[in-house]
């Protein structure tokens, strides 16, 4: 597999899977304002997914467009980090998942906006504006829920304990990412961890939440080894194009 294609799939699939999950909140949020916010963030993620997957398909050169890549790959061909496919759960679970991702995405997009590949840089610059806003939203909720009531504190602490083991997958580093960094068109996520920690710790200070002592990490998403949840998610998302492969929509 072409290294750049593989790298772009990782970016596109993270955004796609998150967008797909956030879309499920539409009409079910805890308040109208949050319904709008979560849908809006989901919409940004779908927009980013389209841009990354379109570029990936072009680089691959096999004639696959964004929809071919989104709807006609099986779960083992997806390259999203495991964190993105964790279920929505309750509002706190979704917010923690988003916060852990946003703290990574701001560093990633900032780094990629200096890519030597002008197309990657352009998508990243647009995405950076969005992820900065997403982080503002998810961080504000981490603080509200952490500081709010005893119940909200306990709930969101549990969400954090449950989801933290999946963070390591975001920083997965291999030949593809290392080459990307050396060649100057990409960022090696391993280099983003320090910035992530700093933003994460700031949030802990302000929310009163605590970091669990030691967390054995769950990894595998970047090489297509996923959790059970992903194939259900894809079955739902891909149902129409797979059932009617000749149709244009």
């Amino acid at each position, binding site marked *: 597999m072409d290294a750049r294609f593989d790298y772009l799939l990782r970016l596109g699939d993270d955004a*796609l899977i998150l*967008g*797909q999950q956030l*879309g*499920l909140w*539409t*009409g*079910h*949020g*805890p*308040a*109208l*304002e*949050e*319904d*709008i916010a979560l*849908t*809006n963030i*989901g*919409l940004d993620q*779908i*927009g980013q*997914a*389209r841009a990354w*997957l379109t570029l990936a398909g072009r680089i691959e050169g096999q004639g696959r467009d*964004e*929809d071919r890549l*989104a*709807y006609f790959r099986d779960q083992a061909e997806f390259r999203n980090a495991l964190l993105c496919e964790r279920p929505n759960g*309750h*509002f*706190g679970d979704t917010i923690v998942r988003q916060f852990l991702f946003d703290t990574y995405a701001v560093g990633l997009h900032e780094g990629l906006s200096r890519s030597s590949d002008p197309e990657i840089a352009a998508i990243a610059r647009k995405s950076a504006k969005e992820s900065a806003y997403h982080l503002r939203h998810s961080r504000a909720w981490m*603080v*509200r*829920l952490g*500081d*709010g*009531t005893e*119940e*909200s504190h306990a*709930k969101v602490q549990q969400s954090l304990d449950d989801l933290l083991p999946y963070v390591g997958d975001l920083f997965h580093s291999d030949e593809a990412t290392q080459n990307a960094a050396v060649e100057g068109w990409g960022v090696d996520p391993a280099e983003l961890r320090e910035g992530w920690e700093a933003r994460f710790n700031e949030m802990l200070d302000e929310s009163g939440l605590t970091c669990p002592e030691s967390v054995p990490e769950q990894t595998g998403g970047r090489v297509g080894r996923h959790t059970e949840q992903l194939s259900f998610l894809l079955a*739902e*998302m891909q*149902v*129409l*194009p797979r059932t*009617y492969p*000749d*149709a*244009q*929509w």
Partner: protein
Amino acid sequence: MEMDLLQRFEAYIASDKKIEPKDWMPDAYRKTLIRQISQHAHSEIVGMLPEGNWISRAPSLKRKAILMAKVQDEAGHGLYLYSACETLGVQRDDTIADLHSGKAKYSSIFNYPTLNWADIGAIGWLVDGAAIMNQVPLCKCSYGPYARAMVRVCKEESFHQRQGFQIMMTMAGGTEDQKAMAQDALNRWWWPSLMMFGPPDDDSPNSAQSMAWNIKRFSNDELREKFVDLTVPQADLLGLTIPDPDLKWNEETGHYEFGEIDWSEFKRVVSGHGPCNKERIETRRTAWDNGEWVRDAANAHAEKRAARRAAADTAAA
């Protein structure tokens, strides 16, 4: 005194001036507006559910993005309308509680299920189309905040209507399966869409007063006729058949004649026995109940933060 106020109010209405929140208004006018605007807001919010049902299964990423943006617009409409309602002295949470208890109604059309992807097209084309027909006159209604909210709502709705029609064109011009889905969607949404204009004029108890107050500007039957006249040629263009054997063009009147509407179905759905009434309200209630701890946390945090600021200010002084 009351007489003077009433005369002034009526003079305002007669000269087509807007009534604003701080102006005196008869209680019955206020109550009518609260009922209508809150029902309208609830319709936007409940209306998110049948379309939201297909977000996860939208057949392309572009369609998914469009549908998310559209349903999000509906949430925005709900927000403006709840705000317009608050200018009349009722709180959003109380209004929502009335929806959940079944005291307040919402548009019955949303008690029908969305069963295939073409339903998303049919809702935009027919349901939003009928809504626009009902709502454009409201941009000129006598209550200022409602009229102004409706200007923006109508702009977005007309965009929604066009995207719905565009889905229908794609489906009707697609494979045999897609055409069948489009026809099936039209068959199921046509009659409920005609019912959206409300009962016939001779059976519409609130209409006369609302017309006198310039809240309503055209009768139910006038708007329904206008909708049919506009929509039938669009169905022809799509190559789809309107499910009404009695439908025919009347050269003399310059309007379409259409078959008898099944008002017993309308009454059944309005009174809570449509295919999805229970499900829709249950979904809204569940979302609200599941969100309670979140809203409580946000309030508690806001209070704690204000208290910490006040303490810091005192310490500094």
